[in-house]
């Protein structure tokens, strides 16, 4: 557990040092697009009421001064496949965002959509010697959470204490100064494949940037697209991405579960390309402009020119009806939703007090998706757009940017303040001078 403590504190310190510089970059490395936001932390609330951005969610201490997005290259299922290609894409987007912002970005916070995330719920319990929860008791209970064997090469990227309980009073957000005999803590830990993280780190380092923090894409998109009540009462966020579909469950403003379904929008495009025998760019265009999941009688009559440059007149003059496209897309989307259903069932979402489900991500823009999802996932469905943040251009506020916006919110409010408490004295080496110092401080 000491290692977890040290890595979490180190990550927190790196991010705080980067925030001290005032300018930080947000890099959302997705399978279909890479977007970069440049945030300026000036401390003052510079939002204007005329922009329609109120002091919402207390995120008014930063503003976006540059934003860009580009087509992603060299990624598959949210994992870096060809590092040089990904590096070029990152260079493209960082160059464009820096040009808009007019400042140089040195530190970036990146998000990781693949890497086979695995959620663990840890529990820890200590006996309160003084009969009251002091700060070092909080640190002790965090350290007392017994970590299971995560497996070889797994890295913890999120570790958040979700719930504290003193004696039998559970559901405490802040247990300090509570009187009791026993302090228990539930912690949610998200691990990903270490090699995937290392690839991202290497790729960002090759772009002369420093990685100031890393977050899971499912966590980030839920931060942006779930409203505050949903985060408090409990909701699931489903982010339809290009290479994978991220699922995360929030309650009491903390993520308690995250997983990734490795089927995404790219597979739908591939289906269209195979089923209608069109090139991939054409398939992507058909999916984006004419896609859907609910066919009506009118869709049979709506003929779409496929076009082409093959030189074969017959092939280039083909037309497909919209119903054809829907017929190809719908089974694949149903399969995605079925997989999401399985993930939610595995997480025990049925036992949650609130059954709210929020669809976001680029794939959620398919018309009629909410109706289809309501049939498979449950009745409380809505399509979520990311929170408006200060200075973000209007065309960057559609659902596909929710993980970038969520990363910006994560940079401002990382929800890992509990790791600020000093490590318990027992974790230090036995003859350490600091251990003696900690012991004196805790006992006098």
């Amino acid at each position, binding site marked *: 557990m000491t290692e977890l403590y040290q890595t979490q504190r180190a990550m927190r310190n790196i991010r705080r040092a980067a925030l001290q510089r005032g300018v930080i970059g947000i890099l959302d490395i997705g399978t279909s697009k890479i977007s970069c936001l440049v945030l300026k932390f000036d401390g003052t609330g510079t939002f204007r009421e005329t922009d329609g951005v109120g002091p919402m969610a207390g995120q008014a201490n930063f503003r976006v001064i540059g934003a860009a997005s580009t087509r992603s290259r060299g990624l598959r299922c949210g994992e870096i496949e060809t590092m040089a290609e990904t590096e070029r894409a990152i260079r493209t987007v960082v160059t464009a965002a820096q040009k808009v912002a007019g400042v140089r970005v040195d530190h970036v916070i990146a998000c990781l959509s693949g890497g086979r995330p695995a959620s663990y719920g840890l529990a820890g319990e200590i006996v309160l010697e003084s009969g009251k929860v002091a700060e070092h008791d909080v640190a002790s209970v965090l350290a007392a959470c017994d970590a299971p064997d995560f497996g070889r090469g797994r890295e913890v990227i999120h570790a958040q204490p979700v719930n504290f309980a003193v004696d039998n009073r559970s559901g405490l957000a802040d247990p300090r100064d509570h009187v009791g005999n026993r302090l228990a803590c539930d912690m949610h830990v998200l691990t990903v494949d270490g090699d995937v993280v290392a690839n991202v780190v290497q790729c960002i380092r090759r*772009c*002369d940037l420093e990685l100031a923090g890393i977050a899971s894409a499912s966590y980030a998109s839920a931060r942006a697209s779930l409203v505050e009540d949903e985060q408090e009462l409990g909701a699931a966020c489903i982010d339809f991405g290009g290479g994978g579909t991220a699922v995360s469950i929030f309650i009491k403003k903390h993520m308690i579960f995250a997983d990734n379904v490795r089927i995404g929008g790219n597979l739908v495009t591939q289906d269209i390309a195979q089923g209608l025998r069109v090139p991939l760019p054409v398939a992507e265009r058909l999916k984006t402009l004419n896609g859907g999941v609910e066919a009506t009688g009118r869709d049979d009559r709506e003929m779409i020119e496929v076009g082409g440059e093959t030189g074969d007149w017959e092939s280039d003059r083909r037309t497909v009806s919209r119903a054809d496209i829907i017929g190809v897309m719908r089974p694949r989307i149903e399969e995605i939703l079925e997989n999401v259903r399985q993930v939610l069932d595995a997480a025990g979402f049925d036992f949650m007090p609130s059954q709210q489900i929020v669809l976001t991500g680029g794939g959620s823009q398919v018309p009629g998706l909410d109706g289809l999802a309501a049939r498979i996932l449950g009745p409380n469905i809505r399509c979520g757009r990311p929170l408006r943040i200060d200075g973000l251009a209007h065309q960057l506020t559609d659902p596909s940017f929710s993980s970038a916006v969520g990363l910006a919110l994560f940079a401002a409010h990382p929800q890992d303040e509990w790791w600020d408490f000093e490590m318990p004295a027992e974790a230090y080496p036995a003859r350490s001078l600091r251990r003696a110092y900690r012991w004196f401080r805790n006992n006098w």
Partner: protein
Amino acid sequence: MPVVIDHRPPRQPERPGQPRPRRDPAPSRLKYRLQRMWLTPLYRRMVRVGVPAFLIALTAGLWLSDADRRGALTGGVTALVDRVQSREEFQVRMMTVEGASPVVDKALRAMLPVDLPASSFAIDLTALRLQVIQLDVIEAIDLRIKPGGILSAVVTERQPALLWRHARGIEILDRTGHRVASVTSREVRPDLPLVAGEGADLATAEALELIDAAGPILPRLRGLVRRGERRWDVVLDHGQRIMLPESNAVIALEAAIALHRAQDMLGRDISAVDLRDPSRPLLRLGIDARNTIRQARGEPLLGPDGTILEDEQKGG
């Protein structure tokens, strides 16, 4: 007829107007690094300000390091300044003096440091004015260069009011007691009243009042004498004098004139009227009057120097 027939479409000539679309939108690593370097504030400031400033300074320094070029530069600048200053528009051709007597006019023209015509840049009006104002006869002067190349001097001269005789000679004073000029003798200005004594120039206003008040005895007035730098004596002919008090001298003089009118006091043999104490006016009789009284009393007579003469009948 060629052996092999080419069925491929004719090769499209490259249109020069449209550049070929770039395959890779990503910047090269060098370009990326250069852009990031350019966005560094320090580097940016150095390139945009520091390097041009350094280049300019370096070029100027190298060019000026040669003495000939430095000389040519300064010579050129001087010649340019000269050429501008000696333009026709800046030439001053004549000097007009208004309100000055011929002597002062001549002195003013002599004081001008340059020979006309000269450039107006060569005439320092402030210095010239300070120099001219040191002439005692000039009270105020308005010097200006008028359009048309005229140096105009409007002079206000001091008006002579008094002659002051002192140990070093005779001077003409104006009403405020400021020196106007020196004269060699009283006869040069017989129209001006005469004052004498140390500090007489500090009380010219009172002296002029006394002379105005003298009225009927003015024809007999020889002048005023300042005594001890505090009070006046009015000196009349025949050696008579009226000693006036320090304060209210005019009233005392009017009182003496009233006595003179009533009883012809000053027509008698009186050498001095002492009004220094207003409550106790004194008359000093002349030798003849005193001898007449002494003779009537049978006392020995007095000599012209005031000593008692030896009785000739007794002594003889």
